[in-house]
């Protein structure tokens, strides 16, 4: 589900005025970016580390996320859980999240408390204490998280398998939460190793947004993060995905009434050299919108409303990633009595329509209008604005990319979309995983798949 969420972010990609964003780089290499928004006396602080599941190795999957949990378990001067107590007592809200490309720690707090937040983040960047006893409890929490997120959710299992089937040699094939067996065998030393490898100011970006002045934030960052020595960050291997030849298919059996299908085509992400593949990438972005940006977009209109083949259908594309690769994904819940094969064919037919006839001017206009309106709407969320800056910077793109987004979307033509539809949506780039629903009571006779061909 990772990709779908990011897709939503991207369609709503704003281009807020660059004039309000300020940045500096500390001597130890840490980047500090400030986005002013003086509407409320509130500030968002986000510390981003360029360390996510794609930096993990086999046998230790999930360690990026486990370390994220351990970051709340105390430092040389702060007891386990005390970080959260201090933030709560200051009226703050906090959390953290781990993705394939990054790990981020954030707080939302009344602005006078920013120094407290910066001081504590700087403390846990350098003074984390990982006690074996605390680790052994927390790893149980993470296993419960995995059971809850993936193991007991049939659609999440389909997604997990689809990722790992689509990416054979690239680490995007591994689940962010980690394989259960790796979690079961993980030790506090694995977490510590991860912390020592990646938690360095030179591998981090601080984003502060809200009712602050840039010079005040820079001064705070210099005072607290400035003295932290930079570690030497390991070389990252390129990890190119092995060439795919032929469609890849699999199924998941799980207790469910309805079936489910996910299809993913390998497509490029925006190259860090922005001039390189930008026209393809923006065309894919608009194509995703034409297929699925509202309930009146092609997939829902065709599969759900007109043909009643599915009770839900959508598509998504992530145009920016740190790993350089991306997927253009489709997902649908077939109506009862309709097989996943029929739905797969219906989705392919929609792609083919675009490849043969392109899209209409009305469709292009609607996408462009909504992108422009969203630019304004997203200014209402300071957190979201900080999030975009942090994502871009940790993935290796300049945050100024935001300012070119609308212009690039506006330039996309029907011909370009037609071209990418022909170029990338081939069986040799396709992975398909379907859910084969099983009865809840295993003693009942399995239903089998409806309408097996």
């Amino acid at each position: 589900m990772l990709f779908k969420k990011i897709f939503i972010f991207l369609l709503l990609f704003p281009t807020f005025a660059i004039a309000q964003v300020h940045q500096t780089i500390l001597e130890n290499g840490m980047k500090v970016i400030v986005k002013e928004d003086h509407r409320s006396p509130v500030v968002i602080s986000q510390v981003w580390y360029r360390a996510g599941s794609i930096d993990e190795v086999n046998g230790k999957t999930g360690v990026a996320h486990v370390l994220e949990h351990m970051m709340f378990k105390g430092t040389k001067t702060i007891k386990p859980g005390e970080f959260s107590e201090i933030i709560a007592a200051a009226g703050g809200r906090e959390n953290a999240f781990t993705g394939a490309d990054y790990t981020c720690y954030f707080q939302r707090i009344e602005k006078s408390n920013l120094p407290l937040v910066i001081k504590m983040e700087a403390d846990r960047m350098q003074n984390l204490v990982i006690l074996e006893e605390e680790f052994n409890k927390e790893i149980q929490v993470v296993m419960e998280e995995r059971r809850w997120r993936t193991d007991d959710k049939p659609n999440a299992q389909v997604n997990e398998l689809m990722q790992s089937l689509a990416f054979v040699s690239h680490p995007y094939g591994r689940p962010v939460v980690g394989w259960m067996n790796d979690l079961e065998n993980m030790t506090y030393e694995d977490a510590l190793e991860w912390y020592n490898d990646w938690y360095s100011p030179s591998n981090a970006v601080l984003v502060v947004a809200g009712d602050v002045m840039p010079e005040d934030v820079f001064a705070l960052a210099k005072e607290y993060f400035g003295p932290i020595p930079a570690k030497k960050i390991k070389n990252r291997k390129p990890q190119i995905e092995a060439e795919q030849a032929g469609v890849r298919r699999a199924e998941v059996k799980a207790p469910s009434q309805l079936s489910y299908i996910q299809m993913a085509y390998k497509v490029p992400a925006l190259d860090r050299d922005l001039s390189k593949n930008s026209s393809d990438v923006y065309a894919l972005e608009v194509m995703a919108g034409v297929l699925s940006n509202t309930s009146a977009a092609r997939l829902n209109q065709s599969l759900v409303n007109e043909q009643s083949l599915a009770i839900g259908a959508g598509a998504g594309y992530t145009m920016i990633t740190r790993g350089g690769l991306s997927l253009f994904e489709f997902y649908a819940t077939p109506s009862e009595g309709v097989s996943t094969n029929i739905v797969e064919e219906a989705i392919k037919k929609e792609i083919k329509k675009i490849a043969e006839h392109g899209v209409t001017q009305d469709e292009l206009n609607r996408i462009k209008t909504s992108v422009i309106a969203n630019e304004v709407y997203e200014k209402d969320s300071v957190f979201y604005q900080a999030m975009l800056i942090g994502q871009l910077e940790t993935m290796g793109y300049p945050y100024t990319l935001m300012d070119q987004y609308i212009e690039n979307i506006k330039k996309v033509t029907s011909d370009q979309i037609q071209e990418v539809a022909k170029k990338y949506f081939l069986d040799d780039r396709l992975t398909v995983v379907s859910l084969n629903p099983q009865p809840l009571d295993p003693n009942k006779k399995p239903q089998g798949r409806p309408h097996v061909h």
Partner: protein
Amino acid sequence: MFIKYIFLLIVTFSFHANAAIKIDSWFTDKGSKVFFVQNNDLPIVDVEVSFMAGSAYDKDESAGRASLTNHMMLLGSGNLKQEEIINQFSEIGAEISSGFDEDKSSFSLRTLSEKKEEAFKLFQTVLHRPNFDGEVLNREKKRYLSSIKQSDTLPDSIGNKAFMKAIYGEHSYAIPSSGTLDSIETITKNTLIRFYESAYSAKSAVIVIVGDLSKKEAFDFANQTSNDLPSNGQLRSIEKVKLTPSQTIKIEHPSSQAHLHYGYPIMKRGDEDFFPLYVGNYILGGGGFVSRLTEEVREKKGYVYSVYSYFMPMQEKGPFQIGLQTKKEQIDEAFKLVRKVVKDFIDNGPTESELAAAKSNMIGGFPLRLDSNKKIMNYISMMAFYNYPLDYLDTFSDKVNSVTTEQIKDAFQRRVILEEFTTVIVGAS
């Protein structure tokens, strides 16, 4: 993305007392209540119109009627089909969405202020002229039926349905909002038209407007919205909640985790014990990672990813509920620990330092609750719908601040009775 903690964001419990927010309030000529907050910082207008038309207004045999009415409102108006309406909103960059729960059916619009006139007109078309097209209804009924069957395979949905049925018995809060396989079959176009005409009246409507427009513009929009709503509607009420006997229900499921639902109906909107119960619950299980339940069940034992408690005040008594998921083999130990924590809290109340930390969070975190138009909209809309006084936000901090440990202990001992708790465990080992 993997988030370390789950926040249970319940609008009910989010308040802010920022004197800078000035709420204008009036009634339209046809009797709709209006709340208006002018805010010209961004060129955006947000609108929400709510009706007393939630699932609590269904009967067992018509279960799903209120939800389908809400759902169909966005699927065809006048002679416009769903895709035509949605595309017309897209053409001006406006967004429409709907919300639905036991008490309420609501519709929200977000538009650029420069497009507000066109957006208002379209939005009013949706509210005034739903066509409840028969073919569309047949298709949507099938989707509802499939969704009902699907949710009957998911442990959380199974547990929730069983829990609501057990704690509400014959009360309409027990009715599943999406209906049942039998009830959905019986719903026709006429069922929806009748429900719309009676429940979506001007008197039942609450109109909330936030953003970049003048009071005169807000006034005119509210009147136009109100004028063309059905005029023959009658205000309905939800009956009082009668407590059902405490029960323990165990449901088998092949999932790896067992899901616990534990609680019963306790508090309604405007309850006189609201503040001590609300502040007390922050300490017991509402305050994210610093609550007693999280500390004991997650941090000390590693039993769960998430454990929480909340009061959900509704028009009539809403549930107090404690929930968790843990692997089946340890559900008994985890549940035992939950009961111990809750009993200890009821018997002894919070400590002074816990109360001080809770107040500090709620009062110090006040500005966070109001830092966007969207949030202002959500809170003001809740206040308008449930008839909160206009100074509610202004006095909120003082009321939190005046709560004592004794009051919390007293309120929990009177109101949170362990013997009344109902237990539902799905995936029991």
